[in-house]
């Protein structure tokens, strides 16, 4: 019955009763969140509220930190990503990630985007080339780099590097794209390009973005989750959150009265 309902709503992310601990520190408390396919969800809240921790749970980045513990379940397209038979490498093909600071590899623009395909054992040159071009186009970077694909990625501006990192994440055709403050290190024009890109990308991907910039959350997302002290205080349509939130605490945070 439950799976029927899930199927109807096309849930891409379904986290249930998630608790997370850094040793003794209880970082996430009973988080429940459902994300439909092709939606953008923004996670907002003051520093240390748990939003990045939650984001990193979705591709098991927290596995790398000693002394952490999680209870509850996280399903991506119906699959429990913490089940024993799940390989983290396989999971990360489904769930791509873009970080706060652009982190291109010390390789050419082309090779940066081809990297994920090559490490996954793909050797077909034509396929790689097509996929690289397609990904760079999807990341709205093509016109700026099409004549210098063999140049070093470091020659690009910060905003271009970030879009290159997005192209790199897209190349392996993930279902979910996680973004941890993807524009916080960028100037306003580059930020605006990333925001427009997110709006375009949601046609093909489901996106979760952590941002400290509330206006950015309001501009790019369909749904917004407000986190505070490890709890998810409110999760609703972005329009609702930014015009008439249910919780006073959410209102105080988004209006800048607190946080």
């Amino acid at each position, binding site marked *: 019955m439950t799976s029927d309902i899930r199927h109807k709503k096309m849930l891409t992310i379904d986290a249930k009763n998630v608790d997370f601990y850094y040793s003794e520190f209880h970082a996430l408390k009973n988080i429940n969140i459902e994300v439909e396919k092709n939606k953008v969800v923004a996670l907002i809240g003051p520093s240390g509220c748990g939003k990045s921790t939650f984001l990193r749970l979705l591709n098991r980045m927290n596995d790398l930190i000693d002394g952490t513990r999680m209870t509850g379940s996280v399903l991506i397209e119906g699959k429990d990503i913490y089940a024993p038979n799940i390989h983290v490498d396989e999971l990360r093909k489904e769930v791509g990630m873009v970080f706060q600071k652009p982190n291109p590899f010390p390789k050419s623009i082309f090779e940066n985007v081809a990297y994920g395909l090559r490490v996954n054992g793909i050797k077909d040159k034509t396929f790689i080339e097509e996929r690289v071009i397609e990904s760079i186009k999807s990341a709205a970077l093509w016109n700026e780099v099409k004549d210098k694909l063999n140049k070093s990625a470091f020659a690009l501006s910060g905003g271009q590097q970030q879009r290159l990192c997005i192209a790199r994440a897209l190349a392996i055709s993930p279902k979910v794209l996680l973004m941890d403050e993807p524009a916080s290190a960028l100037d306003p024009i580059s930020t*605006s390009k990333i*925001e*427009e890109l997110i*709006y375009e990308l949601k046609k093909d991907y489901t996106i979760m973005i952590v941002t400290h910039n509330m*206006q950015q959350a*309001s*501009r790019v997302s369909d749904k917004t989750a407000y986190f505070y002290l490890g709890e998810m205080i409110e999760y609703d349509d*972005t*329009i609702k959150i*930014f*015009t008439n939130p249910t919780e006073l605490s959410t209102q105080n945070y988004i209006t800048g009265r607190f946080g």
Partner: protein
Amino acid sequence: MRHLEQEIQSLRQDVIDMWKLVISQVANAGEAVLSFDKELAQKVSMREKKVDAYELKIDSECENIIALHQPVAIDLRFVLAVLKINSNLERIADFAYGIARTFITNPSVILDAELITDTKLNVMIQQVNTMLSQGLDAFENEKSDFASAIFSEDYQVDEININAARIIADYIQKNPDRAYDCLQLIASIRKLERIGDHCSNIAEEIFFYIDAKVLKHAPRK
């Protein structure tokens, strides 16, 4: 096209659609009065709810754009102007509805053709329709010049209204049995005069949006 531009484009289209509806409401209400066409008056009455629905939709779109996109400069002026144009258009449609209702609820009212000519009721109806269309032209084409005639036309409408009072008073003295009909007529003339004022308010908002000029309460020739 940027996301915000798409939202603004869609808001603009809703305003244009509402505007066209309001123009036809005013034109039909005027025509209903001039030709004693009760069916047409009924049509105006039935379409009033449609205007109200547009008003609510546009208000909500403006609220969402401000809350979600934080418009600045011309985008901000556009949204602020649309909020005010929206309520002015809704008031105009209310007056058109009021005029139509007068002739639905008072089926025995007959207006003397000569009195209509003398009070210039027909000219007044024509004038406010022109003003509404000029406003829409200016808004659609983003040319404030197209709206500049509205201010002087509003004076002409005011003039007709002032003169009508004297003409109707004289008529009542000569035809006391028609006093009730005349009160209905003067009520409609007052409504048309208010429509002219709202057109003028709209023109001010168009200048604010396009040229960033505040004409409100400014003395005019």
